[in-house]
């Protein structure tokens, strides 16, 4: 599938936005503006962007603890994301969720999730709804390699295959789950072969090549929209930084040469260089794009800073749907 220039530029812009959002989030966490824990997805931007570029607002996704990129790629408002990280009332969850629980149901982003593997069943439920609606919508479930060793992965793949649900399972295989290398935890370290056990297509792609991700996702999404059932895509990628941080970034525990190798595969210049070679982007336009991202992020920080903290009166609100019985 060939992508038009505006779409390609949007994909580039989204990857830059995710990268810069994460860089900023780490700084703001260290500065104490953000509370709790941050799991940056720097280095993995191409997966979220390549997949979400195939989706519309009526397609639904579920995400993980490392979910900022999925939100941004699905079209979330970074001001409300930042306000959520700051714990403010104008955040997506009114400050009740924080980094691990950002959601925007209006655009089909059914939530980041603090429990490894937990998003798969919910995505399968959204896929069931899409199947019943019969309008050709799909669900996409993002998860890490760590989720593959959870039962929920296998249950979700099986039921989706049995019912031919319109769902795409997207594994971000970044070679580690927390500080454990994949080989310590998986007998078969590749994820795509699991698809065969459930009779669905399973492909592995270079997860740092946004166009390759997009290509694989387009095929899988088209298949799902056409009622042909689920697919599994393994995106091989790498996180640039630690698993998570509180007030200080923890020390790197992975081999230095491995980190350096993967940093050399940065998905952002890979796309921007490609676009320049094709005459679709000039260095000046790239500079402008970066400056615009920077302005938007500054505006998001200002928005978040100006938003009040929730009041104690908000503690017990949002527990139950207000209008209990629908008649």
């Amino acid at each position, binding site marked *: 599938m060939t992508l038009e220039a505006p779409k390609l530029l949007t994909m580039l812009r989204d990857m830059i936005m995710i990268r810069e959002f994460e860089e900023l989030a780490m700084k703001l966490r260290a500065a104490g503006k953000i509370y709790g824990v941050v799991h940056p997805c720097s280095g993995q931007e191409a997966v979220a962007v390549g997949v979400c570029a195939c989706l519309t607002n009526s397609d639904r996704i579920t995400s993980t603890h490392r979910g900022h990129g999925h939100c941004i790629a699905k079209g979330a408002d970074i001001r409300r994301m930042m306000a959520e990280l700051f714990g403010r009332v104008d955040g997506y969850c009114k400050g009740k969720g924080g980094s691990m629980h950002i959601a925007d149901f209006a655009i089909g982003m059914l939530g980041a999730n603090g429990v490894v593997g937990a998003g798969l069943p919910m995505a399968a439920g959204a896929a069931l709804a899409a199947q019943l609606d019969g309008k050709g919508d799909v669900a996409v479930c993002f998860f890490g390699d760590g989720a593959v060793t959870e039962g929920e992965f296998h*249950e979700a793949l099986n039921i989706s295959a049995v019912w031919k649900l319109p769902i795409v399972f997207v594994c971000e295989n970044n070679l580690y789950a927390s500080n454990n290398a994949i080989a310590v935890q998986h007998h078969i370290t590749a994820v795509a072969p699991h698809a065969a056990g459930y009779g669905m297509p399973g492909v592995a792609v270079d997860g740092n090549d946004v166009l390759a991700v997009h290509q694989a996702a387009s095929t899988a999404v088209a298949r799902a929209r056409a009622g042909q059932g689920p697919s599994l895509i393994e995106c091989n990628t790498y996180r640039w930084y630690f698993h998570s941080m509180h007030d200080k970034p923890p020390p790197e525990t992975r081999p230095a040469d491995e980190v350096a190798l993967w940093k050399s595969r940065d998905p952002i210049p890979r796309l921007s260089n490609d676009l320049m070679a094709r005459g679709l982007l000039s260095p000046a336009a790239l500079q402008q794009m970066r400056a615009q991202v920077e302005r938007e992020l500054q505006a998001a920080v200002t928005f978040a800073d100006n938003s009040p903290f929730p009041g104690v009166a908000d503690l017990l609100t949002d527990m139950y749907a207000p209008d209990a019985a629908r008649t």
Partner: protein
Amino acid sequence: MREISFAKALDEAVAEEMRRDAKVITMGTDFTGDPIKEFGPDRVRFTPISESVMTGMGLGAAASGYRPIINWRSVTFCFVAMDQIINQASKVRYMFGGQADFPVTYRCGTGSGMGMAAQHSQSPHSLWMHIAGLKIILPSTPADAKGLLKSAIRDNNPVVSFECSRLNPITGPVPDGDHLVPLGVAEVKRAGTDVTVVALGYYVREALAVAEAFALEGISIEVVDPRTLVPLDVDTIHASVRKTGRLVVVDEAPPMCSAAAEIAALIAEDPASFRALKGPVQRVCAAAVPVPYSPPLEQASLPRRGDIVAAIRRVLAAG
């Protein structure tokens, strides 16, 4: 009014709600009757034996415009779906800041007394009460079973329906038409003036039988059935205790951190109810053991009528 069984009342509730609202769908490893015949295989889904995924799918479909009824069948099996119940179902609305509603109903058979041994004889309703964010119903009659389950299906929150297996064959009158029982409203099943017995699920029948016997002695027992455990109709319980000054709570679960413990604590904390008490609150609960198989042991593990009688005599003797 017709006389139908508890099990049939529950089936009718599901069928009526599915007829009424095309967004109501149901999922489980098996069903009573043949709901596919009327509602078709799209809306009636036989699942693999995958409780975790079916529990989570209920949330995903609920957030996407449907009103799923997930049938765990026995409460035993939902324990393999604890993540989806505790980390997800109870929390998603609040932790996402109330952005979306999750109108999903989880149904399960509970309770003991059927020779099913430890794993299949559980009454863990207080576990779910403890997890803020779920609503919980525990009906004791066919009419309440039907009316509460229908309300649960229409409710826009995750509701867990505890359906006592021993009650399934029991018949009782069920009002005709669209019979609804609101969530969070207790019922005084028998009015009385001397002792309040708050009984749960199957034990409402037992409490009523005991009350009948005490009436012959001229002792007037009030039997209160909370029907919904979350939200709990505390006011009705307080009103009864303030009137009688004596409280016995009967619950099929072991006493520690139980619904019975919660009800006793609520009474103890409330100045007016506490002042009204003429003696200490008594709980009649199951023994704190996995339910054994052999009939005499199983019976010994459960609250018996004699235990209820003895507890009532203790509160009468206290003042």
